[in-house]
């Protein structure tokens, strides 16, 4: 390997890594606020890219049906829940929040299907279509278990991965898509070539990380999320509703996932189930950060991107093996450096 190739691989790795940064931040956000290890998160990334690809091909994105399915299910769950609680007046609110709101972008996409909107309109529409997936899944499957153990929530989230990949196949079909490049410039620095796509990926990841930081530091909802992740019961006592922080966390994370999908779409062919591996690689990055630290996650995710890039140069068939094997030294290091914690409340059965 020459230094030039090393540099190219490194730059490539940082570009991929910046996707993992966004996904990893979303995962940590969800985990710290709701204690859910949200395994299907990668699917949101893939669905977002596939949505944009369908729009570019002038087709109606399968996301419309996906959202409709999820919205109906969420409305059912919410209605039953409010009736049981004896608060039928809240049902209307639930129907608006979980039914009407997510269906607005879906309706727009349905009406404009085949109209070939300009890219500047397609991208926001694709993002708006995908963003409700997270909060809807939270309402359907996770909120009824909000007080369960981390382990149980993890098992549920793995079950959801099954379901979401099945729905993905149903609505997006088995073929793979690649979206049109967003930019086409090429910059040369001496012998090094950097594409504008790479710059766009890195810059967007940096921007959204910064926005997330500002949100946490300077807004009340951001502080509520932080408070919840520090101490759930304490946050509840001062009047922060666990339900609304969960929705907000999933909404923000979905946004990060959707943006990642738009960025990664032009660089590789994605299938309905490609998101799983993307999500898991971001997880490896997040575990490097202990599933708790945002800067740690960002660094870990960049490291995974670079590692993957070099591993695929060495043996592209075994790159996944290399990336996931990194978990072993990472966990060993974590287990030696983290203090033992008690009361991990492992309760699977009643």
């Amino acid at each position, binding site marked *: 390997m020459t230094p030039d190739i090393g540099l190219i691989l490194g730059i490539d790795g940082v570009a991929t890594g910046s996707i993992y940064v966004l996904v990893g931040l979303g995962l940590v956000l969800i985990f710290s606020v709701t204690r859910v290890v949200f395994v299907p998160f990668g699917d949101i990334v893939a669905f977002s890219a596939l949505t944009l690809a369908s729009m570019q091909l002038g087709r109606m994105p399968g996301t419309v049906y996906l959202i409709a399915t999820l919205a109906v299910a969420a409305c059912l769950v919410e209605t039953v829940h409010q009736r049981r609680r004896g608060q039928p007046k809240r049902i209307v609110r639930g129907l608006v929040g979980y039914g009407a709101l997510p269906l607005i972008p879906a309706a727009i996409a349905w009406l404009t299907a085949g109209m070939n909107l300009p890219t500047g309109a397609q991208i926001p529409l694709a993002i708006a279509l995908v963003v409700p997936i997270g909060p809807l899944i939270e309402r359907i*499957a996770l909120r009824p*278990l909000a007080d369960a153990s981390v382990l149980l929530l*993890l098992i549920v989230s*793995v*079950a959801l991965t099954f379901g979401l990949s099945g729905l993905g196949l*149903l609505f997006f079909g088995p073929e793979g898509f690649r979206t049109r490049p967003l930019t086409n410039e090429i910059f040369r620095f001496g012998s090094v070539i950097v594409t504008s796509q790479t710059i766009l990926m890195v810059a967007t990841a940096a921007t959204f990380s910064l926005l997330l930081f500002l949100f946490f530091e300077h807004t009340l909802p951001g502080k509520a999320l932080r408070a919840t992740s520090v101490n759930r019961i304490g946050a509840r006592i001062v009047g922060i509703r666990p339900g609304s922080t969960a929705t907000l966390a999933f909404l923000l994370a979905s946004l990060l996932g959707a943006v990642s999908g738009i960025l990664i779409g032009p660089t590789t062919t994605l299938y309905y189930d490609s998101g799983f591996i993307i999500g898991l690689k971001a997880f490896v990055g997040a575990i490097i950060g202990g599933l708790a630290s945002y800067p740690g996650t960002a660094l870990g995710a960049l490291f995974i991107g670079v590692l993957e890039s070099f591993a695929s140069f060495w043996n592209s068939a*075994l790159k996944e093996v290399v990336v996931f094997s990194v978990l072993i030294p990472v966990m060993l290091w*974590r287990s030696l450096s983290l203090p033992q914690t008690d009361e991990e409340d492992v309760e*699977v*059965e009643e």
Partner: protein
Amino acid sequence: MTRRAFYLPALVVLALLAAAPFFAASFTITLLNYIGIYALVALGVVILTGFGGLTSFGQAAFVGIAAYATAWLTTTQGASPWLGLIFGLALTVAVAAFLGAVTLRLGGHFLPLGTIAWGLSIFFLFGNLDALGRHNGISGMPPIFIGSISLEPTTAIYYLIWGVLAAATIVIANLLESREGRAIRSLRGGVVMVESLGISVFRIRLITFVIAAILAGFSGWLYAHMNRFVSPTPFDLRMGIQYLFMAILGGSGHILGAVVGAALITLLQNALQDVLPHFARNGEQLEVIVFAVIYVLALQFARGGVMPFALRFLPHRAWSSAIVPAAPLPRRTMPASGTPLLTVERLFKRFGGLEAVNQVGFAVNAGEIVGLIGPNGAGKSTVFNLITGVLPSDDGRIVFLGQDITRAGQRRIAEAGIARTFQHVKLRPSMSLIDNVLLGTYVRTRSGFIRGALRLDRAEEARARHEARRQLKRVGIDANPHDLAGNLPLGRQRILEVARALAADPALIILDEPAAGLSRPEKTVLADLLRSLRREGVTVLLVEHDVEFVMGLVDRIVVMDFGAKLVEGTPVAVRADPRVQEAYLGSVA
């Protein structure tokens, strides 16, 4: 219902299973073979998840390792399948031990996440290694022979599969009723209590993980020689996840849940494959959605799986309440009364900016009852946690029976002869009273995993049970020793903790607020019990808020306030001390 009513249905089921090859269609037998093979893996998940509180999504990978190992050895090296079994199991154990050693110190969600990654890696590895035939896999393995009998026919290997499953179920059931099995069952719900009993959480977790992997290894070996073909797909992550859900759906709290879950999912899958194509072009996509919905609903509404519902229709196990006579467990020789037992010197502990324990020192002599009192937040429980090794001290020295235990850790301190109870009761509510107390005897007994699994531990077990019953009787809650500990009122739960601590035959027993939540008569009984312990030479150190209870009982009192020792002396002297009055009531002046 009588015992016969319980055994009759079981015998009918067993007879039907045994005779199945003579009347069932060959497709049914194939299905039963798969159920047996899956159930073996699910059985591993049941002890891992349902009993041990650990979760693995990667069991399919262990199945794969064993299957590929025997496939490779029997095809390329021409070895016998029996050698393939040994090779496959050895490899599985080695990999499981390595992975476990790395990940099992990290509790909670790290292990399962690690198993997801590892399940995926193995799948890619199988599919990309030339020696393993890449995605085409390996075919042409020989059938298993027992003597000269070939197990090639489906109906022949059927007996081997279900024989192995039956043997595994019995061995695991034995294990769970043994000393180490109780340790496995105690893993769920926090490690501090477990370590305080002298049990190494890491060791128990590791061996449990390896046992689950061994069961998966047997399953892989059977799979490889039944199918005589292996490829990566049956060992992928999806299958690994399915094994977990077999255990959960069947009932992870019960050994038979594995078989029930494996049967349920296999039959359901089979039925869906017949029905779903009528609804969609590609039935497979609907199948995963249906399963996902079932899984999520099951986790929301029936976390215990099917077994708890099934058990309602079966009679409960009838326990005899008689104490089975057995030789008592050997007791330690108590140190001579009045000799120094525990010395605490300049103990210091800081939490961030708070000096929780500041230069505390006191001594406890053998045969004394010493009370540690002080207002809330004085640092009493922290001192207890430092002495018993739950927390590491920042400075100071703790000597017990002439041995420096300052850095010894909970387990060694328990072995040295200190037993304790907790301010917030730490019991296993889903275990019976007697099982909770038996946990206390762990440090006094020796039977390991293999002895337990093969029931070679019965003599020692009988002695331990005798001891546990004796302690339950002694503290006055031996009416229903097989009731669940969680059903006791809180005060009685405290007393149960005392019984557990006594079962360890400690030289020093440390009680953190033992009388809290007790009624007045119960307090009297407890005080009498502690006095009788003193007569036996057991030393007692206790934190208690009920001053009346303490004053009438203890020989000496140490008073703490704001992390420091205030006064030490006899109850009368302490009661008269103005500094103590000030600490409790505010300044008198």
